[in-house]
């Protein structure tokens, strides 16, 4: 029998373990995942050499013609996988940040982590002129350094709420200035390359680009979703309540912050700072699941679906002219943000 007040289904094993899950949240996650995979198939099928979805699926299963499997496995699959992984990482990181800051706008774009990754990359491109591996390392290093800086400045008990937001905004502003400076110091060819990277693009991504974010997702995803989802939900009720319920507040928060920063940085390393996926994915997921709380798994799947769809739209929107995916997410996300500001202002949640 279900105790009163507990929503969702509970699974109990004979030896005393119990697991509660919400059917609706699970359904949303599965649905988003299905959409993400479906659009990936479309994405793989579109391009200068169009393929029907049936052909794509057959090729993916290993039964395609040699030409098809060359195109799919060597060129288009890495891009689609990178899109899925980057989207999932951003969605998960966004959900963690929004939960930690207790504000629907607390996304890594706003809090300076994305700018930190950008500073790292600009430094590499402008000062060292490195290749794609160096760029990825620069992004990860810059993001992590920024995370450490924000945490250090916000202070020991500052890794939540308003302090984190304000410090993050300040750091973001400083880094934006630094980025602008680096951009003016570059040669025009380097500057164009840097701006392309800064917008976020998935063009020409191969397995080496997708690997770091995939590994991070494989390691951190289960850790965060299974290990810390509970703690995060408790923390949303306030520090005192969470402490009373036995959550090691500082440690849980530090782990979450580190995981989210790492995911953001590696996602930026793979595809550039794709804006607004981390902001919108958790919110859309929450609207669909209609459940309060961090909604980690649905956000992750939603992020993957959003980014793949945006990349597909970016390739298809203007025939003969491929847009970087960051332009599409930036425009759509910006529109969503304005709508959010207009409709939500009365409720005072923002």
């Amino acid at each position: 029998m279900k105790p009163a007040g507990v929503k969702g289904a509970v699974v109990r094993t004979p030896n005393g373990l119990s697991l509660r899950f919400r059917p609706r949240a699970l359904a949303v996650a599965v649905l988003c995942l299905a959409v993400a995979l479906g659009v990936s198939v479309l994405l793989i099928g579109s391009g200068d050499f169009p393929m029907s979805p049936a052909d794509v699926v057959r090729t993916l299963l290993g039964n395609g013609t040699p030409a098809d499997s060359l195109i799919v496995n060597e060129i288009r699959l890495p891009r689609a996988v990178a899109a899925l992984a980057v989207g999932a990482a951003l969605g998960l990181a966004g959900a963690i940040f929004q939960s930690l800051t207790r504000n629907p706008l607390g996304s890594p774009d706003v809090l300076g982590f994305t700018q930190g990754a950008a500073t790292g990359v600009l430094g590499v491109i402008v000062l060292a002129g490195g290749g794609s591996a160096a760029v990825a390392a620069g992004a990860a290093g810059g993001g992590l350094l920024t995370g450490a800086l924000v945490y250090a400045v916000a202070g020991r008990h500052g890794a939540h709420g308003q302090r984190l937001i304000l410090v993050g905004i300040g750091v973001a502003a400083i880094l934006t200035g630094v980025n602008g400076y680096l951009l003016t110091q570059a040669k025009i060819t380097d500057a164009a390359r840097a701006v392309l990277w800064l917008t976020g693009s998935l063009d020409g991504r191969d397995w080496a680009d997708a690997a770091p974010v995939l590994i991070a997702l494989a390691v951190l995803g289960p850790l965060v979703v299974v290990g810390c989802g509970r703690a995060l939900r408790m923390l949303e009720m306030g520090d005192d309540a969470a402490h009373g319920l036995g959550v090691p507040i500082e440690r849980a928060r530090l782990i979450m912050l580190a995981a989210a920063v790492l995911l953001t940085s590696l996602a930026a390393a793979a595809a550039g700072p794709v804006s607004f996926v981390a902001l919108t994915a958790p919110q859309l997921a929450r609207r669909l699941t209609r459940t309060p709380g961090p909604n980690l798994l649905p956000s992750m799947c939603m992020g993957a679906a959003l980014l793949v769809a945006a990349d597909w739209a970016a390739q298809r929107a203007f025939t003969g002219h491929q847009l970087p995916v960051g332009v599409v997410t930036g425009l759509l996300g910006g529109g969503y943000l304005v709508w959010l500001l207009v409709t939500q202002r009365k409720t005072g949640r923002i």
Partner: protein
Amino acid sequence: MLLLLAVLVLSLAVGAKPLSIGQAWDGLLHRGSGSYTVVHQMRLPRTLLGLLAGIALGLAGAVMQALTRNPLADPGLLGINAGASAAVVSAISFLGIVSFAGFVWFAFAGAGVVAVLLYAVGGGRGATPARLALAGSALNAALYSYVNAVQLLDTASLDRMRFWTVGSLAAAQTSTVEKVAPFVAVGLVLALLLARPLNAMAMGEDAARALGARPGRAKILAIVAVTLLCGAATAACGPIIFVGLMVPHLVRALTGPDLRWLLPYCAVLAPALMLAADVLGRVVVRPSELQVGIVMVVAGGPVFLYFVRRPRSKVVAS
């Protein structure tokens, strides 16, 4: 005032070709002297533009902080300058408008739209400083991603705009100064006239009404003033942030919260700070230059962090 004068002279003298103060003075007054060209062609417009932009941004920050009753309000941080930028970039790229007289109107439109939107958010019930700052910087991010997108699709204008978007006084010309001046002047007068009603409104709108102020009209005029000041400053020298945040706080430490003192002091101290930053930018990486917007951010960011970190900070308590 003395500080401002000193910085004005320095701004005339310091640069790629350093002049002594006497030479700068000579160049300013005597047509025949050797430094006349340097001073009149390059340094003077730049200094005047810095003066105007500083006045505009400092006052806009002070008015916004009073209007939203929010100590973190800053035209750059909250996206008003970014709104002007986005409008200007669209004008440059899509409509091919390159003259200042052409795109200044776009800057006003962009700044105005964002100002109204932010006021709608900031004026809502339960809007804390952090919330407004967050909404503003999210808006900033959205607008800049738009600016980036436009630049990306149009490499030719990227070359022109990448200097403009960091905030620079280097490209100043006498004609630009002449065109900005009237807008800043109108904004200045408007802001100073608003000191009394905004003072009254600091105690809440009901109290203000009881004291004979008309809050509705004052609010609209304040938004108009902020739009004029920010739009003009942004159109002239690109988005520059943190001036509007820092100066009112520094001045408040001197004058207290009375806007009738605060606003004039801001109008003096902000340009001094702006020109000091510009001079600093010319000196630190000789022989090249650092744009004033960058100096301001690198110097102003830590000040912002200091306000946030202060133990009894009201900003965080709310």
